[in-house]
């Protein structure tokens, strides 16, 4: 609306921005509620956690929840660093593999003509709308049949094929102008080069968005740890945090759960801050007139 011709972040505050800020600011406060709540909740002492009516803001902030969390993790047989390591490996590999597969597939499905293309898209569409929990047992059978129980593969494989991400990336690849690719083919590029040098840079925002989505799914996923992994030392941090909060008595567990929620939330925040400039990367230099 307030279009001014250039998409450069303004250096200075102008009076004309005031009306937009007036609209956005209340919404921002409203949207920030859950975050403020998590942060506040983690620092609440015991009596405030169970106060009725529940309070939103913390009055006497303490670090008790965090210390009890650390204490509980010390008494456990397996050090916490092991879980952190597991989670890191699983998350990084899953994000990398699923982004690689989805961008490849999206490029082919959108820009290359071959048979069975539309059938594949339909299968993907169908899979998007299917309920994840319903395929739990077939999934388990596949994994146990492949001898993947108690390995990292069991964490990674079920999440690599993410239909929603493919759908999202494909929508963006569709918008890459054909003439750009044709120009590259004219100059002697092969398909792989077109994929690397043209498609990938052009759909950077989609990749960043998909990365955030995949990360969220992997990071908060407990299904794989619950069902596909028996060995405690192969489970992920999310699972560990959850059991810590639940296994101890529920009253003390509440505080630890709040602290764990904050700890699990921070990587999300960091990743988003890192990626958000890519999300906004403009296509202003697309070179097509």
């Amino acid at each position, binding site marked *: *609306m*307030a*279009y*001014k*011709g250039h998409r*450069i*972040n*303004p250096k*200075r*505050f102008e009076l004309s*921005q005031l009306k*937009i*800020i007036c609209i*956005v600011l209340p919404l*921002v406060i*409203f*949207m920030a*509620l*859950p975050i403020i709540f998590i942060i506040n909740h983690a620092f609440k002492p015991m009596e405030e956690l169970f106060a009725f009516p*529940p309070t*939103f803001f913390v009055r006497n902030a303490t670090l008790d929840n965090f210390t009890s969390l650390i204490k509980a993790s010390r008494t456990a047989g397996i050090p916490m660093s092991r879980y952190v390591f597991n989670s890191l490996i699983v998350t990084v590999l899953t994000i990398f593999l699923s982004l690689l*597969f*989805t961008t490849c*597939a999206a490029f*082919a499905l959108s820009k290359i*003509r*071959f*048979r*069975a293309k539309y059938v*594949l898209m339909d*299968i993907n569409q169908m899979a998007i*709308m299917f*309920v994840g*929990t*319903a395929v739990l047992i*077939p999934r388990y059978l*596949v994994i146990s049949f492949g001898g993947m129980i108690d390995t990292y593969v069991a964490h990674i*494989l079920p999440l690599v*094929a993410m239909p*929603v991400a*493919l*759908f*999202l990336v494909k*929508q963006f690849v*569709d*918008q890459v102008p054909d003439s750009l690719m044709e120009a590259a083919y004219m100059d002697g590029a092969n*398909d792989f080069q077109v*994929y690397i040098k043209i498609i990938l840079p052009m759909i950077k*925002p989609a990749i960043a968005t998909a990365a*955030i989505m995949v990360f*969220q799914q992997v990071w*908060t996923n407990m299904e794989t740890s619950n069902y596909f992994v028996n060995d405690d030392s192969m489970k992920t941090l999310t699972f560990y945090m959850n059991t810590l909060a639940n296994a101890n008595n529920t009253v003390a567990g509440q505080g630890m759960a709040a602290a764990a929620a904050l700890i*699990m*939330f921070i990587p999300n*925040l960091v990743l*988003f801050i890192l990626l*958000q400039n890519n*999300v*906004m990367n403009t*296509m202003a230099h697309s070179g097509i007139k």
Partner: protein
Amino acid sequence: MKKEDRQAKKQKVRIKPGRLARREAVTGLVFVSPWILGAAIFLVYTMGSSFWYALNNIRITPLGRLFSFVGVGNFTQILLVDTDFTPQLVSYITSTVLSVPIIVVFALIIAMLLNGNIKMKGFFRLIFFLPVIVVSGPVMGMLTEQGAATISTIDTQAIGSAIGSFLPTGIADAITDLFSSMITVLWYSGVQILIFLSALQKIDGAMYEAAQMDGGSGWECFWKITLPTIKPMILLNVVYTIVFISGNEQNSIITLIQDSMFSGTKEKGYGYASAMAWLYSLVVVLIVAVFAALLMARKDVYERQVRKAKRERKKEARLVKKIERRGIRNARKIEKARTKRKYSTYDGSGDY
């Protein structure tokens, strides 16, 4: 796989495709093949076997899984006997159909606001996105427990009674529910805002400049440039929203399916849950199809242009009339002013 494909092509297609087309097909398959592999194992196979389970009654015993084929028995039981499933499904449908447009429109508005030049744009963007992370985690349960996710009951009831006075109860209830869960509905819109933002960024600024040169207002620019350009993204967002709402852990049908999956009763169990899941996903597909049909509706181009031209002509005629009337009015005004102030403008008669 590739060989078979090629052979099938030879048999079916009479005109043998050229070498170039064949090469393209091969590279296409090469690019998709990793995805196909994953999808075949973890999507197609699992979905297929869950459909087979849906037709069976499965009991898990120490000896293994016991299958007994019941045909459509599970489905009829869910639809005719089960007292939980159908009402929940109906309430799910109404709430989804109502909340999807709200989420998408809200996301579009926010994205357009954030697309402008505001200070601290990045910070605002961050805030708008973050609730999604929270909502998809276990924290959401804590929040709803504390009552932070609903507007307090008094307001909701006032709204509900106001709406109930002129709408049938079924719809009024759904709208009241929507109001009470409005906060969560808006919290769901993070990814949609991101998608819209990246789509908005791609619109060429020169188009707006050209439109402004020709005297287009901001409103016109929105309808004629912004909306048509981001139309595919709107469809994408609608689909994403529906899927997100349907697959969410907060969704009551999902918990219903999970409960019946692990319940040890004779008639429920895994087959029953699979049947439920299939019914449920069928409904989701239907909802998506309806929305997609609405958004992709495109009449014949010629017909559309004829209709547009007609409308345009009418509008023009109205404008001409308006200008004429204004001219007459202005002439009268000038006449009046002239007689009042006793001075005359040159009226072409030659004498002053």
